[in-house]
């Protein structure tokens, strides 16, 4: 019997607010001239900020969770932290993308609306309490993303990337849906908490095979969305083909959402099959680390290199999952947050260097940046060292936490594989630093910076945050830990 409880609306107030705001912006944007597009820009940022405030106020005490709509939706610490960072990353995408899009005549309302809807999808996804909500949130996110990748209709690369993204993404959604149907068949419920309670993988369980198959399809679907090898094929093409302002988005916030989805499905739903999926994830991690790092070495296109590096970072993130305990999830979430922040600066730098008619997406475009603009060369160097995991930067501590999670789980071999590939990874990040600092610039003129001051400031702050969080990362870690206070062990 489905009952409507008005209090549920209160639990959902950030989502409802964002939905309302997005629809209002959609209407307002209709009546704006192209020259007034900045109104949409600032309104969207305002909507994100207000939503973030609502999320922050609504986070329940550690260990508590507030269900809504017959457990279709859960508001807990994990969802709260992830939503805040998703909103932050989307805000950064707005700030970073404006001048780039304007230079390319892509500064249109659709960019903002699609991103806001994608954000709403991510917020639902990380709060999902049932398989249906997972699918709903995921589709809202991915459908918006397909359209965003194709934003530049006249670019062949952009359209090609969108088609690839759509076909492979639809395939992944199909696999995920298929897995969900099997799990529904085995357990008779769509509610993740009930699945957790009912899923019985003991040897005499009649649904053992069905559950195992369902789990495999779920893991494949998750791996697709995260971009873990061997389900990573879409990722380099989409990263490279999409307009860079969109790549900033695809590379950052959806990783957080995908982490949330993996957590909801694997721990929330299939926690009983922990022993099965940790093994699968361990191998996905090894493959991702190998494929990501080895292929990244050969790239000359920075966007493509960062795409492969994403795959390797997903490998690291999965190390936290392999632990399968509260501290492991916290480490993985910590890693996802750190990666999103680092990726935002890295892609943001490409936007900074890009000008009308010139995409600064080759590594060689960064040649001699230190001579042309030492400040931003420094920001980029911080980001590269952080991605490589060199202390005292944020990326190192994120790696430390996931390595610790793997070692604590007794998976010493996995940690050793990870560090061997971290050394491989070091090479291509250092190459970017080398190009910026050791090579002579092709053009001695100081860098022409985009006039958008908000962009430059937020990019600088984003870069410095990697250094600041490298020194004071304890509060964030505590926050991640407390988010998972409800998880047993």
């Amino acid at each position: 019997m489905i009952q409507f409880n008005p209090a549920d609306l209160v639990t959902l107030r950030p989502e409802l607010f964002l939905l309302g705001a997005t629809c209002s912006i959609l209407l307002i944007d209709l009546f704006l001239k192209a020259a007034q597009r900045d109104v949409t820009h600032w309104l969207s940022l305002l909507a994100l900020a207000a939503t973030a405030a609502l999320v922050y106020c609504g986070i329940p005490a550690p260990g508590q969770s507030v269900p809504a709509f017959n457990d279709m939706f859960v508001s807990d610490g994990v969802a709260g932290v992830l939503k805040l960072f998703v909103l932050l990353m989307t805000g950064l995408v707005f700030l970073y993308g404006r001048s780039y899009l304007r230079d390319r005549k892509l500064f249109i309302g659709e960019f903002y609306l699609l991103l806001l809807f994608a954000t709403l999808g991510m917020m639902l996804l990380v709060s999902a309490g049932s398989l249906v909500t997972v699918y709903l949130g995921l589709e809202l996110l991915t459908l918006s993303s397909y359209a965003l990748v194709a934003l530049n209709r006249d670019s062949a690369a952009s359209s090609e990337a969108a088609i690839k993204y759509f076909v492979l993404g639809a395939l992944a959604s199909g696999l995920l849906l298929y897995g969900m149907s099997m799990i529904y068949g085995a357990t008779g419920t769509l509610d993740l908490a009930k699945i957790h309670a009912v899923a019985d993988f003991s040897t005499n369980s009649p649904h053992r095979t069905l559950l195992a198959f369902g789990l495999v399809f779920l893991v494949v679907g998750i791996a697709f969305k995260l971009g873990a090898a061997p389900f990573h094929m879409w990722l380099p093409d989409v990263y490279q083909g999409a307009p860079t302002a969109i790549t900033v988005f695809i590379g950052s916030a959806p990783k957080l959402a995908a982490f949330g989805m993996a957590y909801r499905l694997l721990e929330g739903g299939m926690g009983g099959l922990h022993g099965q999926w940790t093994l699968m994830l361990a191998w996905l991690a090894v493959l991702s680390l190998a494929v990501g790092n080895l292929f990244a070495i050969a790239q000359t296109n920075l966007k493509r290199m960062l795409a492969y590096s994403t795959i390797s970072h997903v490998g690291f993130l999965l190390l936290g999952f392999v632990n399968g305990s509260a501290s492991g999830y916290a480490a993985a979430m910590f890693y996802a947050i750190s990666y999103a922040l680092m990726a935002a600066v890295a892609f943001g730098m490409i936007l900074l260097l890009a000008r009308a008619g010139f995409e600064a997406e080759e590594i060689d475009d960064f040649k001699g940046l230190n001579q042309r603009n030492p400040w931003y060369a420094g920001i980029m160097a911080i980001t590269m060292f952080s991605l490589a995991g060199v202390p005292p930067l944020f990326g190192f501590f994120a790696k430390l936490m996931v390595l610790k999670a793997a070692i604590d789980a007794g998976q010493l071999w996995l940690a050793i594989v990870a560090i061997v590939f971290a050394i491989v990874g070091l090479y291509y990040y250092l190459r970017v630093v080398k190009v910026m600092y050791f090579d002579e610039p092709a053009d001695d003129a100081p860098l022409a910076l985009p006039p958008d001051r908000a962009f430059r400031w937020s990019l600088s702050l984003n870069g410095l945050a990697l250094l600041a969080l490298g020194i004071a990362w304890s509060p964030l870690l505590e926050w991640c830990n407390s988010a998972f206070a409800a998880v047993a062990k």
Partner: protein
Amino acid sequence: MASHLLSLLIWLPILGAIAVLAFGREARVARWLSLLIALATFALSVPLWTGYQPSGPLMQFVESMAWIPALKVNYALGVDGISVALIVLTTFTSVLVILGSWGPIEKRVSQYMAAMLALEGLLIGVFAATDALLFYVFFEGMLIPMFIIIGIWGGPRRVYATLKFFIYTFLGSIFMLVGLIYLHMKTGEFSLDAFSRAGLGSTEQAWLFFAFLIAFAIKVPMWPVHTWLPDAHVEAPTGGSVILAAIMLKVGGYGFLRFSLPITPDASQEYAWVVIAMSLIAIIYIGYVALVQEDMKKLIAYSSIAHMGFVTLGLFIALALVRQHQNPMGARLAIQGAMVQMISHGFVSGAMFSCIGVMYDRLHTRMIKDYGGVANVMPWFAAFMVLFAMANCGLPGTSGFIGEFMVILAAFQDSPLIALLAAFTLIIGAAYTLWLVKRVIFGEVGNDKVAKMKDLDAREWIVLGAFAVAVLALGVYPKPLTDLMEPAVLQIVKALAMAKA
């Protein structure tokens, strides 16, 4: 009263580096400002030395603050006599390096000076940290400024050299990181003290010992993982070479002392023969390699590896002495000798690289064959260079003699054969150093360019003069240094004797 002297010593140069970057647009300002900061840091390190009470507790100037409570990681600093000596060596050398880079560094001066100051702060941090994670952060963090120093201001093959340097050392230390995380899992905290009381089984110790060995052997560097060093030295600017040889290599020896010996004493004893064999190969084989070098910097780089062989030899001979021969006094001598050798090598190698820098600034070549008869045109310089060369061969009266002599003496008490092999250095070291001096300094003036070389200017005088004072003072009267380190050394010997399983 809690003292914040160590924090001040670490953060003053690092914050100073930021100030130099911010205000050093003009090269002159950058130079003076960084000299001022380096001098201030040196001045601050003097009370550390004078204020250290050998009769007091082992760790002094202790600071501790929770850094990451969730992992029980503390921002914990403290020094014993060995750390004090190394910190003073660091601050002393940094002043001279900044002074020495005054003229030669012309492009992007503020960035160079900032990198040097940041490096200084991080090195002091390495020697002061008593928390393993904090140590690791400093240990790895110092790769970044060095990477930049070699890469921007280095020679023609600088990119190759600096990438090799970074990746090689990163490779070593990341295995140590896994070891540290493992130890954290065992003990629940990251303090070095807790690690040494972890009560590890012999298999665990062996794994950890090798994880530490990779990290520190690359840093020292020991044969056969030394190949990054000649490349890095040859390509680095003079200042980079001096810091690299005088201080960064010491981090490896210091690491053995702080990690391998106290945390994995049983495995260290079991595998001491590996380290001793590697050290002897370094002393003899690398010595011969040095003999055939045609590049002066490469020659000194190889001689550094050979001299650092004495450090590792001394540290691991001590184990055999204390455990197999029940000879704690011999062990004390060995560790004391290794430490004196570290400090002495810091001065001598720093001075040798500075000398080569002086010549390089004039002729822009490091090849031995391009020189000859320098004494005729640069008498003062020649006097200094010969003095440092004598110290490099270990002539009595110079600092080079003390450490090597102590280690050989200790080695003799364990095995006359090891002592005999180690003593070969006195011949080989003399051969390559004196032959270098003969070809470069003495004889007829080699060519017209050499004839036009000018003798030292005031700035170079100060740099080489300061090194000369240090080398002679330590050679004639090493007692203040050995007294300073005595309690720490005795503590290590005691711990080694007790830890016997």
